[in-house]
């Protein structure tokens, strides 16, 4: 009799034990992924370091209301849906059942606290303050509904506020900003483990992430500014994702059995700006001539090695409202020469600098030289003048750049206003083109939130830019990453490295 009870007891314990084992999360399919970025972060406060390299870390630790996905559609993360309830207020409906890494619940209070922290917390000192300064008030309607009211109609409200990182109110109130800046927590798929400044940031998987746990146990971010060293890390198997792979390294990476190159058309576009406030660029015919003189396809094919696309019109094709009817100026040196003659300039008479800040985009110097050569062929002397980035910026903001300048721009939230602001008088601080008509149209689209109403105005703005040749969009860059063949990962056009979706290959 006793033996029988023993067996039943043992059977019972075995069942109990195996059920508890099964209810634990199985180990992740991938043990560790190392991501190599190009610049170090300077703080772990996700609302403070705004650089792209840093945001790649934040968006894996923290949550945000909404962010653009691979198709540049605004996808809800902590917000399930949102709508305009009047012409200047957006109501966000928040996801329920989400918790911060310390167990604190995510709710409307957390959203209000996070946005208020950016706007009003001087000690935290978030640089995003001026970017969302249009927010007048954040109103908690109920636990999972929050209204964001702006000072006026702001079409980009949802996208701008959506990408702000949500921080834990209880944790910060209890431990303070300084502690948070060294030990951040969020609602994201990975938890912060450690930060050794100058060396690495280590994250570990959050098994309670509301979308389900990631397939990676640990993530290590390392900053390596020198390109060759970065690529070597990939080729020796010490890194799994490496950013900013130059075209000449592509063959080497592809040839390796352990790694490959992954590209994605990005939001980054290279533009040629014209200081139309000065002679001779104040003459619209001269500007037109320049537009037609540049062989953009040649640049794309021979300098960018195909890792770029000529910009269709004036805006990167991922930008909302990009007008397919606005065409880029055709490469026609004959036309350019005749326009110049009509404007009264003899060949060789125009002598202007072509400046750019070095190190902002791949092959900057080669592209500048190609443009200079193209212009030389139609009788314009454009002297390539590289400047150290900080010095170029200094000149730019001091309104002292003359002639032509090359710049690259990433319209991160995919909104046309991001580009329009360059050609609106006085908005960026450097006015190199000024037209009252264009200013009016740009100002109008800025206060028309309803997409159906805004679209025609945005298209009109592009047409005007094209007519005046206020800004010449050259090509959209394809971002290249080096990726280890151990993992499957898809990049995004807005350059964010999101690791939740990574799977083993």
């Amino acid at each position, binding site marked *: 009799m006793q033996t029988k009870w023993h067996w039943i007891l043992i059977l019972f314990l075995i069942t109990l034990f195996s059920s508890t084992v099964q209810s634990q999360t199985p180990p992740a399919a991938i043990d560790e992924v190392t991501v190599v970025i190009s610049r*170090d972060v300077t703080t772990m406060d996700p609302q403070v370091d705004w650089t792209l390299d840093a945001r790649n870390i934040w968006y894996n630790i923290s949550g945000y209301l909404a962010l653009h996905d691979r198709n540049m559609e605004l996808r809800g993360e902590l917000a399930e849906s949102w709508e305009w309830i009047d012409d200047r207020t957006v109501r966000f409906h928040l996801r329920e059942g989400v918790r911060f890494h310390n167990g604190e619940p995510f709710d409307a209070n957390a959203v209000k606290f996070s946005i208020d922290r950016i706007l009003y917390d001087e000690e935290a000192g978030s*640089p995003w303050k*001026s970017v969302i300064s249009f927010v007048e008030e954040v109103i908690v309607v109920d636990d999972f509904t929050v209204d964001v009211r702006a000072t006026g109609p702001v079409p980009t409200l949802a996208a701008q506020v959506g990408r702000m990182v949500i921080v834990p109110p209880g944790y910060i109130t209890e431990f303070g900003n300084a502690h948070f800046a060294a030990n951040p927590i969020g609602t994201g798929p990975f938890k912060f483990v450690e930060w050794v400044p100058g060396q690495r940031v280590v994250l570990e998987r959050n098994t309670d992430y509301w979308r389900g746990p990631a397939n990676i146990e640990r993530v290590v971010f390392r900053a390596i500014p*020198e390109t060759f060293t970065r690529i070597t890390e990939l080729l*020796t198997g*010490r890194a799994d994702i490496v950013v900013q792979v130059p075209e000449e390294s592509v063959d080497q990476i592809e040839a390796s059995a352990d790694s490959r190159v992954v590209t994605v058309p990005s939001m980054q576009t290279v533009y040629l700006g014209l200081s139309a406030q000065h002679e001779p660029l104040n003459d619209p015919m001269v500007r037109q001539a320049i537009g037609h003189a540049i062989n953009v396809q040649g640049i794309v094919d021979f300098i960018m090695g195909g890792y770029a696309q000529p910009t269709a019109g004036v805006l990167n094709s991922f930008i909302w409202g990009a007008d397919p009817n606005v065409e880029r100026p055709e490469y026609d040196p004959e036309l350019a020469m005749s326009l110049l003659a009509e404007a009264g300039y003899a060949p060789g008479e125009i002598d202007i600098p072509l400046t750019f800040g070095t190190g902002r985009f791949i092959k900057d110097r080669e592209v500048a030289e190609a443009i200079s050569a193209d212009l030389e062929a139609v009788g314009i002397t454009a002297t390539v003048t590289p400047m150290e980035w900080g010095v170029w910026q200094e000149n730019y903001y001091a309104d002292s750049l003359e002639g032509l300048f090359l710049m690259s721009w990433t319209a991160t939230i995919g909104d046309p206003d991001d580009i329009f602001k360059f050609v609106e008088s006085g908005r960026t601080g450097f006015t190199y083109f000024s037209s009252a008509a264009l200013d009016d149209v740009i100002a109008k689209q800025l206060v028309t939130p309803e997409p159906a109403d805004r679209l025609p105005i945005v298209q009109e703005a592009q047409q005007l830019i094209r007519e005046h040749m206020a800004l010449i969009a050259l090509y959209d860059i394809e971002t290249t990453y080096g990726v280890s063949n151990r993992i499957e990962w898809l990049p995004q056009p807005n350059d964010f490295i999101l690791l939740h979706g990574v799977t083993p290959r």
Partner: protein
Amino acid sequence: MLVYVVKRLGHTVIIILSVLIIVFALLRLGGDPSAFLLPPDAPASAREELRVSLGLDQPIPLQFIRYLQEIASGSFGDSLRWRRPAIELILDRVPATLRLTGVAMAVSLAFALPLGIMAAVAAHRRRRWIDTLAMGFVLIGQSMPTFWFGLMLIFVFALTLRWLPPSGADGWTSLILPGVTLGFYSSAIVARLLRSNVLEMLSQDFVRTARAKGVREVTILARHVARNAAIPVVTILGLQVGTLLGGAVVTEYVFSYPGIGLLTLDAISQRDFPIVQGFVVLMALVITLINLVVDLAYAALDPRIRY
């Protein structure tokens, strides 16, 4: 002697001040941190506000006086991006750079001592080819830019042979490639100097006397020649510290080695003034003090020299 030391310390202060003034002015004339502290989406008004809050709209001499006042009260200012005292950030990274510089000096001597002495002995004995070989090797070392040499080492030892890590600071293996890169150039200079000094010593009367007395060649080299040749070598080594620390910036960049060089390079490109200024003051202090120490050591080694 004491008077001499005090005078030298006075010179040190003047030097540091001069360097600081130059760097302070150059930084402010060549760029604006507000452009790096705010996302590019920020409006121009926000940048202007930031400039004013950082005191950058003030004339440079006024800013400098305020900076001196800050130093007087014990602070080198807070890093604009890290939001922590600049001096703390710099001192945090100093041990790493010291390790690197230490390895570099060891590498430098490890190459220079045998090469220099061998070359000198060979030249003395009219065995031209050893001398030429050694000095040829040295010339190569002196002609190679640190940046390129570092990349070559990565290519050979990290990528092709997979013997050593290409970057970082995990363990002693990470110190090898950057240490060799940094030390190689310096070894060339030390080797050449050593060769010419040892060569000179070997034809001195006192050496011929020792030989005539039957003292073994090795002993002659070790005891008599070495001590005399050491004097200028110590001087050069001391001066090399400055070069090494400067070269560490490039080496640290190539290998992503987390020392003060990389910190400062990053700070320069982002116009983080307090870090760059703090670095400059620290470097000027270290270099001028080491020069002082070398001069005093000179006096200790050579009884003919007295201040």
